[in-house]
């Protein structure tokens, strides 16, 4: 049990420590987006403090980059920092300067400021030590040790009379002075017992009957009795006949402070023995003190809970003394009894102090439902109390049961709320071996999406998916991006059959239900996303699937069952078996594909199919050139003998080509095309023979020609099919609550599961918390007035240089401030506001609300709805098959929380300038960024170039025009389908040959125009540089390295790491167990020195450190040192009297002070005898000197080290 407790507390500590480190990780990766100058400013502001580094192109930065787009930035990065006191009274808050009324440190995290440093606030005289205090808040002494690892702060057992306390020595003195009844307070303070042992110690104090001169008697300790001038009779009760006191037996009982049992009282008010109704009149029971273990019911398994006759209670075994009157309990005599402290919950009996987990539905495996929370229940003295774990499943409830020796029954249940590590699981998806690491990462699991032959991949998802704010727009935006990780497209590839029709060659299963099922599993396991149910089992669909079936009803019914808890299921402490099991579920390790991203495979397949098509094209066109050239060569040779055959061959070839062209124009199948070409060749051959040999064998020629014509006719019957690939798309959106508010009240039903905003909002779109902060706070449905929402333009949601015009009740127009039409490819932002919480959609066509394609402002009920996009050049439209002429109207409809939809369309009109595209493409983004640092070991580097319009790009090592450049990039994005939020993507692999590499990049727009001169190329190259660090990242040193001494069991150490080489940004993590599951250091990423304050125990400590830079290079090292506990007091070895001075020596370096009053002197106000091993006091003859010495660790006696009289 003890061991398990230690493990549990270790886990807990690790989680907590990780939590801090993670927070830093979050702050490091957070972007610069800031929406409002309100409470939410803080976390974003915090993020501004650290420079955004290339390596932080993680999901977090991506997300924040995404959400900042449609918003209007409010505060610049320089405004954020740490504020000592904010206007709200909050201390050490990361905020903006204008919200700060105290000291402000711009661009700094609070932990890095001097005014927010945590320390120990203490008063050595009273023995009060408070941890984690700001210096400014401490009116007494302050030391920069937040954990107060000081010898004087140590807790020990303070025994005062027959009571004991677990205090510091200073506090013990205060207690003793208060309680002591004698003249000289005796401090009994020891550090050799635990808190439990100490509290039990109070029961074992030797007490007895103190007979006073007047025959009165008091039950006391010997010390107390001496103070009363009484005669102490150890082990006797005042009612003992032999003592002949005035105290008599009674039937009265009472509960005693610090003791568990119900005790008899004598007529003098003294505590007698444990209440035992059978012994009330037994004189022998009133003679001597009988310990509880020798009293009635000592062996009772339930500690005499609810016994009417025996008061031998034991809080650790299930009962405690309570008033029978207050609890309406009938006892045989007196008014105290052993109250049963166990609890019964759902038919299960729990012991006092037992705790267990309760859930709202299934948990783990990514199955936690929306609105659910983990609950810890505790049995406390007969009552079940609820302790909710952090909402939004930011904490999970873990349970560890101690079983009986035979393992059949549960002896004790222990539960705890611990941090949910979900953020790391999401983050792992951005790392190289993230999926592998995922398996070994706490609270993470690998979700396998295995739909089809080329559409399968693994994703790291949380074991317990997090909840998202269902109402806060700031968190809705990030939720949209996390869910968006499950927005994927599966390309189903077809090729034409020989004799017509299409043949499926890849990803056929994406066209089945399996696609939606697999993708929705991934989607909902990322968080509150996709098709998922809430705590009452209400399902809402928050995904879109194109060209593939939806989830069927049976599947949905299966999801609804997730809202029903599984009895006996709970999250276990550090249970990794599930992760391993999941890893095995996909097959043998060898079966797992190395390429996890299906897109890669899909692209490769598509590339292969495209290559075949391209070859066919060459065959049909270029092939003719080859044959022509061959013919030309033959004729120049002038070989007369074969001239006739040459003509026939040429004619056959011409016929073949003509047949091929005809086949292509007719769209014949491959078989039909071949037949047509053969027919053409025969016709050509026949006609050539007729022409050449008209005199001899013209009939043969005609026959061949006719056969050819017949074949061509037959070939025309084998028409071909359009075998384009089908894109099957799954769009994963944040979860949106069901319409209405019929379930809102269910949130208030169970006082053991108190309602919260998240829980309330999950029950219905119309649910809201009312009377917040008051006793009447509850979840209620808002009023349904039956009126659909009214829309208005969101005037501030507009790009610079654009304006809303022609505003009417039915819509508005977006136009440039100067009038006219908008330029193509300029980013466009627009928005509407609704008069009530609404979910808005828009489309380019007038269609019903359900069929509308696009969400306006996300998949949520909000007031302000915005969207951002880029309009293409209308001149591209028709050539690319879209019906886009430059005039565009967007049709908007909104639905309120009760499902009332606006009856008419709200229209947003705009037009884009038409005309030939005269501008070259613009490179808007580069990955890695220009002048970026890459791995020291790299010999090549994958790069991504993003342009504002569809383009083809090339690169070269020297600056030349586009057409002269030798190296083409891969540019597959089609118009209107950019694969990056910033634009159209081209990729390539650049060779890395030196430490500094320069490349020249140019792009050419309108790829569909092929070789047309209308295409626009960059006239200047983008000079792109990639650098390798001079030296690979290395760990220079780790501190501490040397063994050191301390006086306390735990010591605050400052782990310091120095790195060198590598890129610009170094990040270090640490662990106590190896190089896995490492925790990012608190202060890292800002330079080459990294530090972390740690609380470490005495003994050998090994700390593993791993540091990496933005290139992904890393270095590992460890440090081992011993923390040696030295609690020995400085000893005085010799004392001399010399020339009016007292000279004395200590065995170790110490600071010695003295007083002439007593041993209990104030350290600071006393005289200094010296530091080191030799100490001197200018002494006066006849005076006594009280000397106390303390070593550098703070070891000092509570009284004197020595007292000596100057002779």
């Amino acid at each position, binding site marked *: 049990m003890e061991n398990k407790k230690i493990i549990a507390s270790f886990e807990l500590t690790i989680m*907590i420590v990780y939590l801090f480190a993670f927070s830093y990780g979050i702050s490091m990766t957070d972007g610069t987006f800031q929406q409002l100058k309100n409470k939410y400013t803080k976390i974003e502001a915090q993020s501004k403090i650290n420079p955004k580094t290339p390596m932080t192109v993680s999901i977090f930065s991506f997300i924040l980059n995404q959400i900042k787009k449609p918003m209007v930035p409010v505060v610049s990065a320089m405004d954020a920092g740490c504020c000592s006191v904010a206007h709200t009274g909050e201390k050490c808050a990361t905020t903006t300067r204008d919200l700060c009324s105290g000291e402000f440190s711009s661009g700094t995290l609070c932990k890095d400021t001097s005014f927010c440093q945590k320390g120990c606030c203490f008063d050595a005289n009273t023995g009060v030590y408070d941890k984690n205090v700001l210096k400014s808040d401490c009116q007494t002494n302050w030391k920069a040790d937040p954990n107060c690892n000081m010898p004087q702060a140590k807790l020990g057992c303070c025994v005062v009379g027959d009571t004991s306390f677990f205090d510091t020595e200073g506090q013990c003195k205060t207690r003793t002075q208060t309680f002591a009844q004698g003249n000289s307070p005796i401090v009994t303070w020891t550090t050799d017992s635990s808190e439990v042992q100490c509290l039990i110690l109070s029961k074992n104090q030797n007490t007895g009957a103190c007979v006073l001169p007047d025959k009165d008697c008091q039950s006391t300790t010997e010390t107390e009795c001496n103070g009363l001038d009484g005669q102490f009779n150890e082990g006797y009760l005042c009612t003992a006949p032999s003592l002949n006191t005035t105290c008599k037996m009674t039937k009265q009982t009472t509960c005693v402070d610090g003791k568990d049992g119900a005790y008899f009282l004598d007529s003098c008010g003294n505590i007698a023995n444990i209440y035992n109704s059978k012994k009330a009149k037994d004189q022998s029971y009133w003679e001597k003190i009988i310990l509880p273990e020798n009293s009635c019911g000592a062996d009772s398994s339930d500690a005499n809970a609810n016994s009417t006759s025996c008061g031998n209670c034991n809080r650790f075994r299930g009962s405690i003394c309570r008033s029978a009157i207050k609890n309406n309990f009938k006892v045989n005599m007196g008014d105290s009894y052993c109250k049963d402290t166990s609890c019964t919950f759902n038919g299960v009996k729990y012991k006092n102090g037992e705790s267990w987990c309760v859930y709202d539905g299934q948990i783990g495996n990514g199955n936690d439902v929306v609105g659910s929370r983990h609950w810890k229940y505790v049995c406390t003295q007969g009552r079940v109390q609820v302790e909710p774990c952090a909402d939004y499943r930011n904490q999970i409830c873990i349970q560890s049961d101690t079983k009986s020796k035979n393992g059949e029954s549960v002896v004790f249940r222990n539960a705890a709320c611990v941090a949910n590590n979900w953020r790391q699981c*999401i983050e792992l998806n951005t790392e190289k071996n993230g999926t592998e690491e995922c398996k070994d990462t706490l609270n993470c699991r690998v979700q396998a999406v295995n739909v089809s032959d080329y559409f399968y991949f693994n994703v790291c998802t949380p074991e317990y998916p997090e909840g998202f704010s269902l109402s806060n727009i700031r968190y809705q935006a990030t939720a949209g991006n996390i869910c968006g990780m499950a927005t994927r497209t599966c390309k189903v590839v077809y090729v034409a059959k020989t004799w017509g029709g299409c043949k499926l060659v890849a990803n056929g299963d994406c066209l089945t239900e399996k696609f939606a099922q697999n993708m929705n599993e991934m989607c909902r396991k990322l968080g509150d996303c996709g098709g998922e149910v809430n705590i009452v089992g209400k399902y809402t669909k928050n995904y879109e699937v194109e060209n593939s079936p939806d989830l069927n009803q049976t599947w949905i019914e299966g999801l609804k069952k997730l809202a029903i808890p599984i009895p006996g299921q709970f999250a276990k402490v550090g249970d990794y078996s599930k992760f391993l099991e999941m890893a095995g579920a996909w097959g043998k390790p060898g079966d797992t594909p190395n390429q996890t991203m299906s897109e890669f495979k899909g692209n490769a397949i598509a590339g292969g199919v495209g290559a075949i098509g391209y070859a066919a094209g060459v065959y049909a066109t270029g092939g003719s050139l080859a044959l022509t050239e061959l013919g030309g060569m033959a004729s120049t040779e002038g070989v007369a003998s074969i001239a006739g055959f040459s003509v026939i061959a040429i004619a056959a070839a011409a016929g073949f080509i003509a047949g091929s062209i005809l086949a292509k124009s007719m769209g014949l199948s491959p078989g039909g095309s071949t037949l047509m070409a053969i027919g053409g060749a025969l016709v050509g051959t026949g006609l050539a023979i007729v022409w050449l040999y008209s005199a001899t064998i013209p009939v043969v020629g005609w026959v061949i020609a006719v056969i050819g014509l017949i074949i061509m006719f037959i070939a025309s019957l084998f028409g071909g099919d359009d075998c384009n690939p089908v894109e099957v798309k799954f769009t994963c959106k944040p979860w949106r609550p069901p319409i209405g508010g019929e379930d809102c009240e269910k949130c208030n039903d169970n006082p053991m599961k108190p309602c919260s905003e998240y829980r309330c909002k999950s029950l219905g779109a119309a649910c809201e918390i009312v009377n917040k902060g008051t006793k009447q706070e509850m979840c209620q449905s808002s009023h349904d007035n039956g009126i659909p929402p009214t829309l208005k333009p969101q005037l501030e949601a507009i790009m610079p240089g654009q304006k809303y015009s022609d505003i009417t009740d039915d819509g508005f127009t977006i136009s440039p401030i100067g009038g006219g039409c908008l330029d193509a490819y300029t980013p466009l932002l627009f928005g509407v506001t609704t008069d009530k919480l609404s979910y808005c959609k828009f489309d380019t066509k007038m269609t019903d609300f359900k069929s509308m394609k696009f969400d306006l402002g996300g998949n949520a009920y909000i007031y302000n709805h915005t969207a951002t996009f880029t309009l293409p050049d209308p001149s591209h439209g028709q050539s690319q098959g879209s019906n886009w002429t430059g005039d565009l109207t967007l049709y908007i409809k909104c639905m309120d929380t009760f499902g009332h939809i606006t009856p008419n369309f709200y229209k947003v009109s705009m037009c884009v300038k038409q005309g030939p595209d005269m501008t070259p493409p613009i490179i808007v983004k580069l990955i890695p960024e220009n002048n970026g640092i890459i791995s020291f070991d790299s010999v090549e580097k994958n790069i991504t170039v993003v342009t504002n319009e569809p383009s083809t790009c090339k690169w070269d090592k020297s600056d030349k025009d586009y057409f002269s450049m030798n190296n083409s990039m891969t540019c597959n994005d089609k118009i209107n389908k950019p694969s990056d939020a910033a634009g159209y993507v081209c990729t390539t692999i650049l060779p890395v040959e030196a430490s500094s590499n320069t490349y020249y990049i140019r792009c050419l727009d309108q790829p569909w125009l092929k070789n047309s001169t209308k295409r626009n190329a960059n006239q200047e190259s983008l000079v792109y540089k990639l650098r390798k660090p001079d030296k690979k990242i290395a760990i220079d040193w780790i501190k501490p390295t040397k063994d050191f001494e301390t006086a306390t069991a735990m010591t605050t150490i400052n782990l310091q790491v120095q790195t060198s080489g590598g890129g610009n940004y170094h990040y270090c993590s640490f662990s106590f167990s190896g190089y896995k599951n490492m925790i990012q250091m608190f202060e890292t990423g800002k330079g080459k020195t990294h530090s972390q304050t740690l609380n470490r125990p005495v003994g050998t400590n090994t700390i593993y450190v791993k540091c990496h830079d933005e290139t992904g290079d890393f270095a590992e090292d460890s440090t081992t040192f011993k923390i040696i506990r030295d609690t020995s007091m400085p000893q005085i070895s010799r004392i001399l009297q010399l020339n009016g001075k007292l000279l004395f020596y200590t065995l170790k370096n110490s600071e010695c002070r003295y007083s002439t009053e007593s041993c209990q002197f104030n350290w600071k106000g006393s005289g200094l005898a010296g530091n080191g091993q030799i100490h001197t006091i200018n002494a006066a003859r006849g005076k006594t000197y009280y000397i106390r010495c303390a070593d550098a660790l703070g070891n000092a006696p509570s009284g004197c080290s020595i007292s000596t009289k100057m002779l």
Partner: protein
Amino acid sequence: MKTNRAQVTIFIIVGVLIVSSVLILIYLIREPKTTTPTNENPKAIVDKCVKDVVQDSIKKMMTNGGQITPSLSVKYEGHRYNYLCYQADFYLACYDIHPMLENQIENQILEDTRESVQGCFNSMREELENKGYTVKGGGTKYSINLLPGYVEVNLKKRIDIVSPTGATQSVSDFNTRILSPIYGMVLAARRIVNTESQFCNFEYNGYMLLYPQYNIRRIDYEGSKIYKIIDRKTRDDFKFAVRSCVFPPGI
């Protein structure tokens, strides 16, 4: 002869000195034992008044987490719970913003009651003056000590009461004790704050097992933890809040 005279003179002088000394001594000894001018008991009047005033203040301290009025607080069920440990940012553990809580509460009680305690003396004075007494008062020394089981009120003020008959009574010691579990509750609150500031959590159920005299309730509300430490015997409760390691609803 001369010697005899001188001796007699010395004896007379010594005798006079002895007699006068005795008289002075008698006077001095009798002075404090002035008979009470009436049945009025000024100490009892002040004592009751001071006890009421301090008791109210102790209640206020327990309700407001050790302050006269909460400075930084969270509203729950209509009540403002004073933060003893607070962290404004997400993820991080809280700062103990009220260290040396006992001292702080002692000072707060002093601040809260100083005027009212003075008022107690004024009332007493008024009451006695209405009855024809003359009341004179000296300076006040007033301090509060939270101690295990009770609150010690150290109140020193010299009060001279002169009856219409001229009899004088002086009282200077108005010390009193008020039974209250606040000391133990403050220790428990400090323990909670220290643990929350270090580990973001406090295992209050384990604490209750060791200290069954307290019933600790915790309510999690809007990222804050509201603690109520209830003394099972007196039903007094010490209320405060902690904001530590708060997680945002997403990223």
